[in-house]
């Protein structure tokens, strides 16, 4: 599943070493969240916190086993510290970062642009910058998909998205 599990290619006879580093993030998040959670329930009655305390204790125990495994692996030389598997290479990181940034911008624009326009601009920008589609093709594809989304999710399924200029104009014209 992940590149970090791939053994390091070495020229000598030494045993291959797996990367560790990126896989510390989830245990750190888990330990931090468990601590915060336990703090947030400190004043509650016993019944209201017993299940969460049990889960948090098991989680701490699992993280402790993970830490021991990593420390032993590093000391024995079976593991090496390497964070690059998280982003693989700079070019791919830029592409993923751009896609995520566009998604964040489209969510931020949703309250005033509405579903149809924010989806249209998100798709248009993605097709132009990520797929390097011709502007005409990108425009037609993004417009068709955004309009299809409007018909399905807003006109038929009545999803209560904030209304933008397109939805307001469509409502004024069609009465829907």
């Amino acid at each position, binding site marked *: 599943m992940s590149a970090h599990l791939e053994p390091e290619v070495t020229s000598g006879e030494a045993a291959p070493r797996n990367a560790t580093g990126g896989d510390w993030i*989830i245990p750190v*998040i888990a330990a931090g969240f468990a601590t915060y959670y336990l703090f947030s*329930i400190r004043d509650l009655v016993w019944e209201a916190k017993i299940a969460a305390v049990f*889960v948090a204790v*098991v989680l701490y125990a699992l993280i402790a086993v*993970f830490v021991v495994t990593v420390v032993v692996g590093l000391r024995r030389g079976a593991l090496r510290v390497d964070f690059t*598997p998280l982003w693989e290479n700079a070019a791919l990181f830029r592409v993923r970062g751009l896609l995520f940034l566009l998604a964040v911008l489209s969510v931020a624009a949703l309250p005033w642009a509405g579903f149809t326009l924010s989806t249209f601009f998100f798709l248009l920008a993605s097709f132009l910058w990520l797929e390097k589609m011709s502007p005409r093709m990108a425009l037609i594809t993004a417009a068709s998909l955004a309009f299809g989304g409007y018909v399905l*999710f807003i006109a038929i399924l009545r999803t*209560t998205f904030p209304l933008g200029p397109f939805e307001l104009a469509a409502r004024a014209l069609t009465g829907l």
Partner: protein
Amino acid sequence: MEPSLGFVAELFAHALSYWWLILIATTIGIIIGAMPGFGSANTIIMLLPFTLAVDVDVAMIFMVSLFCASQMGGGITSILLNIPGNGGSAATCLDGYPMAKKGQGQQALVLSFVASTVGGMVTAGMSIFLLPYMARLAYYLHSVEMVVILLFGITLIASIASENMLKGLIAGFLGLLIGAIGADHIYSTPRGTFGALELYDGVPLIAVLIGVFAISEALIMMESRSVLSEAGMQIAKKAGWPETWEGVKMAFARWWLMIWTGIVGLIIGIVPGAGASIAAFVAYQQARLYSKTPELYGTGIPEGVIAPESANNGCASGDLIPLLVIGVPGGTTAAVMLIVMTYHGVQLGPRMFIQTPELGYGVFVTMLVAYGVMLFTTLPLTRYISKLILIPTAVLAPIIIAFTMVGSFAPRGYMFDLWLTLLFGVIGYVCRRTGYNVVAMLIGVILGPLLEANVMRALRISGNDPLVFFSSTVGNILWALLFISLFIPSFVAWRKKRGLRPQPVAGAVAGGGA
């Protein structure tokens, strides 16, 4: 209370006369089943004006058909995009997506449809005749047993879905803790909410599902131009009718697997709250356990698609049994059905089978008809649906993000849920890149509230005695099985490692000793 064959045939003819309604309901069901966030329960709620206005038997035909179809539809995106349409199809990703990547997406879809149909039909047929006896199963499982079953479920998923069991367990228990966010069930005190009012009802499951599966998958898939390998692309481009028949043959060559995994789903479905996600994983694990080639599971084999799909459709039948027999819904959709039936003045429980037996048994007869209709409408479409993954990833990924985000907004209408989805997208991405299983995390989030509710209930009943969790025979057997399931994989790995270690050559040893 037991129905005669003539009575069942009469019900069958009645259900069949509504084929047009079943066709509409199954089409809607398959579409919403394939869309994360648009579950059958939400859709039935949206269509309440219709189900409340028509006669109760027509309403039941519509709801049951839609429910079965949504179970079947969930497998489509699991196979083609690695994004489960619902919790019950999360296990289908394990082998369905690798099959699609190899260019066998069409065969995988056919396997999924045929297994869903066979699993659903066999269990619906069984339910008709075993209804009164099977409902008693639910009486043996109280909150103590449910706690062990839920913990068993999470450890099982962590061990089967992950390459590294420790990381799978960390992801699963983190999911359980995330699932415990929100107001507690008894005192309504907010816990772990970071002060956000939107989290008082708990973490929205759909936002987690879409974040950890859809958003993270969209980010991951950007690493290559296509989801398919080069060879897979050539195979997928040529896919046509022969591939559909190949899928049908593959499925029926494993007919026994379809039947018994469907029954596993039925039994688990009867337990209120256990749900299709546990049923699918248990069936997958059992199929792997009894397989002659367990090491091939997870690499894209037909058995890995058949087992979870048959089980989650078997679970659909099981979900409805406690609803009809004791008036306790086995799942969310069954709960919505309960509301509709109560509105129409139907009295659920044993009395229903005396006063209106045609309604109780009619539910399962409708299932038989609905599955038949679905198979003949979906099979010809697989060759077109499977072409979805031929779209370049740079086009597919933004479309996935744009349209799945709708699903995370739709159930509650909060902008907060969209931001939460993006946050879980990042967490899902880190999990995938570093070997933490996102399926285990999702199942943890689903089971977290159930675990908590059952722990609290058991403690209240026992007067806060923690030993209550070891007070039942069924529970203790389940505890023993849980610990065995935790240690067996480590023991097998240790033995394998030991077996691979180079053995000292007899002569060398002798020489050394000399």
